């Protein structure tokens, strides 16, 4: 027996994939600006990076609005509940074919590790990238307001730090998408919105509080 659950609404999926594409473009063009590769010339890389950045900022504005109006921000409230079981599963149980210790429901789409990771992205990486990126963009007018220790060099460094953290997140995130029932199961769900829950993973959702 398996059960199909509609987990990801159309906006969520659009936001997710839009963000994914923009983040990859930003990493690629940003590393060209940094001089790590020369697959793009500096000028075109800057234009691409800035265009993608503004699109991503626009998308974030919509997403933040969506999260608060729909109450979906609650999906990211961190919890330590069963986190030990989660860690044990990925470190050990997954190799033994143990069932996933977390049951997805539309009310609780993310397991405790996901919650922590996504919250980290939203509260640490994104703001770091966003603030330093805007400071980078508008450095000339900001320069005179900045304290003496803060130069373009520091702004660039923090921005790149954000980029590296994002890159690390992307690597882990992309890998973990393959840990579903089949390697592509989670990706399919993110495309169609429908996640197929299998017998051993299906439990009745808890009654919602309030």
């Amino acid at each position, binding site marked *: 027996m398996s059960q199909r659950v509609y987990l990801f609404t159309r906006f969520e999926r659009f936001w997710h994939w839009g963000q994914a594409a923009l983040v990859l473009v930003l990493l690629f063009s940003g590393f060209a600006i940094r001089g790590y590769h020369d697959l793009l010339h500096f000028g075109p890389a800057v*234009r691409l990076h800035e265009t993608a950045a503004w699109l991503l900022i626009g998308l974030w504005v919509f997403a933040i609005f969506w999260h608060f109006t729909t109450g979906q921000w609650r999906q990211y409230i961190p919890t330590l509940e069963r986190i030990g079981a989660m860690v044990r599963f*990925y470190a050990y149980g997954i*190799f033994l074919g143990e069932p996933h210790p977390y049951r997805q429901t539309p009310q609780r789409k993310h397991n405790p590790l996901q919650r922590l990771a996504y919250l980290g992205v939203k509260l640490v990486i994104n703001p770091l990238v966003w603030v330093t990126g805007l400071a980078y963009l508008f450095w000339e007018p900001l320069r005179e307001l900045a304290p003496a220790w803060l130069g373009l060099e520091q702004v660039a460094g923090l921005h*790149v730090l954000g980029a*590296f953290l994002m890159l690390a997140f992307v*690597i882990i995130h992309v890998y973990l998408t393959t840990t579903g029932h089949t390697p592509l199961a989670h990706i399919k769900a993110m495309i169609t919105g429908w996640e197929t829950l299998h017998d051993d993973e299906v439990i009745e959702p808890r009654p919602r509080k309030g």
Partner: protein
Amino acid sequence: MRGQNSRPGLRCLVGLVLLWALPALASTADHRQFAELEGPFASGEEVTEACLGCHTEAAEEVMATRHWTWEYHNPLDGEVLGKKSMLNGFCIADRSNEAFCQSCHIGYGWEDETFDFSNPFKVDCLSCHNTGDYKKVAGLAGHPAYERTEYPPGSGKFHGPTDLVEVARNVGPTSRETCGSCHFYGGGGDGVKHGDLDSSLVDAHRDLDVHMAVDGGDFRCSTCHQTESHAVPGSRIQVSAVDDNRAIRRGEQTDRNPATCQACHGNAPHEEGPMATRLNEHTRALACQTCHIPTFARGGVPTKMGWDWSTGGQLDEDGKPFQRKDDDGHVIYDSKKGDFTLGENVVTEYVWFNGDVTFTTTETEIDPDNAPVPINTYHGTPGGEDSRIWPVKLFHGKQPYDTVHNTLLVPHVAIPDDSAFWFNFDWAKALEAGTEAAGQPFSGEFDFVETTMLWPITHMVAPDEQALKCGSCHADEGRLADVEGVWLPGRDRHQLLDRFGFGLAGLMLLGVLGHGALRIATRNRRKEH
């Protein structure tokens, strides 16, 4: 229909304005009709006397300028500079060679220190205001050849005669030709010194210089070097390197140098395109010339990038001086002068520059063990508000110095006599005579030392589409690879941060690959389960 009908009217109006404006650009006086200019004139001085009969203040004005005095007091350190006494790495020095070099003096008769700087009739009006057929012959101390003259005597080179009446009756405003007759030929030949000034600018095409191009702005030099009372603004000794201002308005009273880019374009000249603001922000660190003059000596005239005097004086089997030419027919060795390194389409060097320049003079003690000796030094603060990154021509010389006094020496080279180098090929005699004329102590011991000299690159502005691209500098081995004082994305990185970042990403990648491999390895066990 109404719009169509109004067009011919508009055209008529434009035509009328042009008809009115074009003659207005010329003088209101036709000098050909002046009885004063009917001559005959036996000498240039007599022409000047005729000019001053109407232009009563002109000589006084000219005599107050550096074009006349060849003297300049560096406001930075009070050093007495100016062509009269300065040293360079090309033709080295003026002293003792006046009759030759002063063919570029706007006067008549300066051949030694007895020249009378207070005699207004010695001012050469024609040198700047001729419209052709007037040439001051090197060797004649600023005079043209009034008669047909062989100079140097016995050389087979003939000059003149000059029809002074014809030249005087056809005077006009200065032009690229008249200014260029000296400023294009500094250092003894076309394009030798500056690199951004040579005869190709007389009939410049747009790719060479958007402003002076015949098919572009068709500017004369004075369009930018707007001259008042015969004082021409602009100097390579005290350069207006930073002009962080809006454009000068017509009629505005200002002390600003009218020849800067900003005087017309302002300090935020980029208006079009998504990068306009970004480019305007670059003006905090960059001179306009840095991006807009991609290379110099672009007009087909090579400039001298190097000059080695130490090899001068070689003679052929017959004991005669000779020249060697490169494949393009340009002289690269001359017994009189030594070896040359030529350059065309030269990529500039870049320095932080606040406009201040100091010079090695005949009195400066040099350190020959620390060669090359900088003949001039450009001052500036990397990253400073008072400085900009400027394009410069970096010239390499090798020239005589006194091994006892450690000073660069003034040689006597150009006047046909028994001590000039060009006619005797004897350095000892040439330096003896040159230093004596310059009043410079000379021990008699000399050798050659490598020198450098910087020249600001500010002419030959290319069309905007040929300006440097972002990646010209924002790259590892870009044009500004060695320029400090700015954080330059694309060139600058944080080594530790990068190691951490790629290390982190690498660890993540290793981790997931290991995890994935384990999952694959344990796949069967799970299936059994």
